[in-house]
């Protein structure tokens, strides 16, 4: 059976695009090894000083720990909310389902900068009432991140539910299982891969979130992307190159591990 394969012209163009996509990721490697204090190419000599400064400068470590804490809290919150909502939609198929799901997906569709202004309004309003939950607090950032990640978690869980055979649930129901039992003992074990993926994706999205974080933090809740942003805007700090190299390596390893585990193309 002959198939329609791309010809030489397509292949050349695709290689050029592939190079364009990979080039900026490769470019940070030599920059991270420069002995210079400024952003520059190494001239002969290589140095690991920028990697060392990541460990020695307490600001980097603090922001990494803060980002992890915020990521865990916001991922837990958005996964639980998304799971509960999706179970409601799947088990009962209420009227206006499309409208409700559409509403939940809004933070994904609205331009991030508008969400950022909205969450800035929310957190500055709360700041008047509470000093540990509003603007520039880690709990405030975690809540804002949950707003931004919950649509993605919901989509992933709804997709895994849509692949589940309804008859399993009907059988459990026919045998007298209650709503709680059906949800926790029948449905959730069957979509656990989707739930774990939703939690992981929420964590990663929170870990990288910068657009909203920039609006709702100033001096206390400095997450890792926020610290990178400050380094990029003022004077470009080559420690960011070292950090970028580490992040890129982690990403490649995780993607490789995932494609080996699932043995299918990553979505």
């Amino acid at each position, binding site marked *: 059976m002959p198939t*329609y394969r791309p010809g030489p012209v397509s292949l050349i163009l695709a290689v050029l695009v592939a190079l364009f996509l990979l080039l900026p990721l490769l470019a940070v490697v030599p920059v991270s090894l420069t002995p210079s204090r400024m*952003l520059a190419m190494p001239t002969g000599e290589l140095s690991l000083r920028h990697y060392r400064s990541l460990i020695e400068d307490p600001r980097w470590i603090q922001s990494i720990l803060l980002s992890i804490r915020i990521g865990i809290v916001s991922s837990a919150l958005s996964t639980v909310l998304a799971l509960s909502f999706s179970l409601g939609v799947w088990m009962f198929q209420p009227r206006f389902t499309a409208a409700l799901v559409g509403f939940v997906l809004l933070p994904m569709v609205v331009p991030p900068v508008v969400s950022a*202004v909205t969450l800035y309004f929310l957190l500055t309003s709360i700041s008047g009432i509470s000093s540990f939950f509003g603007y520039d607090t880690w709990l405030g950032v975690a809540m804002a991140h949950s707003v931004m990640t919950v649509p993605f978690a919901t989509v992933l869980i709804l997709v895994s539910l849509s692949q589940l055979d309804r008859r399993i649930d009907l059988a459990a129901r026919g045998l007298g299982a209650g709503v709680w039992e059906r949800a926790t003992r029948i449905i959730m074990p069957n979509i656990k891969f989707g739930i774990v993926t939703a939690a992981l994706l929420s964590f990663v999205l929170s870990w*990288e979130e910068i657009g909203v974080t920039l609006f709702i933090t100033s001096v206390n809740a400095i997450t890792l992307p926020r610290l990178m942003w400050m380094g990029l805007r003022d004077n470009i700090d080559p420690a960011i190159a070292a950090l970028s190299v580490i992040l*890129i390596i982690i990403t490649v390893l995780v993607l490789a591990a995932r494609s080996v585990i699932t043995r299918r193309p990553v979505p």
Partner: protein
Amino acid sequence: MRDTLSDRMGAALLMAPLLLFLVLAYAWPFLGVVKWSFTLPTPGLGQYHALLTDDLVQSVFIRTLRIAAIVTVVSVTAAYAITVVWVRGSPVQRILAEFCILVPFWISVLTRAFGWVALLSNRGLINTWLQSIGFISEPLTLVRNEFGVIVGMSHFLIPFAVFPLASAMRSLDERVLLAARGLGSSRMRTFWTVFVPMTRSGIIGSALIVFVFSLGFFITPAILGGGRSVMIAELIYLRIFQSPDWGLGAAISVVLVVFVGALMALLFRYVRPKQLV
């Protein structure tokens, strides 16, 4: 009867927490932003009037539309080229293409913008290399201008442009292509007169997604534009934190939402949501 009642209760109980959370943490504060746009600094339509008359705001709007249009053309074209190989290539080609699409996709916007700074800045890789081979004597200005913004944004958006294209190419009936070839059409002609028209819905979906994303883009233009080619999102940021002119920032946000909403409505008129993913 009792059953349906408890069903409704169950659905309500399960769905309530998220809906409540989003109403309190998202919908209600958005209305607050709308209120700002009408009340700050003085009540009235002053901020919307300023949007229509202020030269700075106007030029930022026009620049944003121009950059978004260029980025859309560049991203969709580049995405098309690599998607053809990802969907139709040999198994090895497919894996390589997938790697090149997904690795950047999962890397944060800051790291990617920084990578372009490392490549394009005056002491970056490209200028260093061009100077060392004696091709140029003064470094080229490749970043902190519109060129840098367009390059960085296209790089970020190509993977997003790939997905609708890939789904259109996957659902296409291969026999039609083989029939065209069998009837003597050249490879080029089959591509332009059969393949491309059959993936039209993917191209429209992809272009609208990229265009809509470009309008609200913030981080990449702020870093690679270096404050010189400010786009709408950065203007909102500056109005809120540096002026602080919350009313105008809020008004621009409201206009942006309405504009993007209209574009999304257009998207769903021409492309069914299922065809996108």
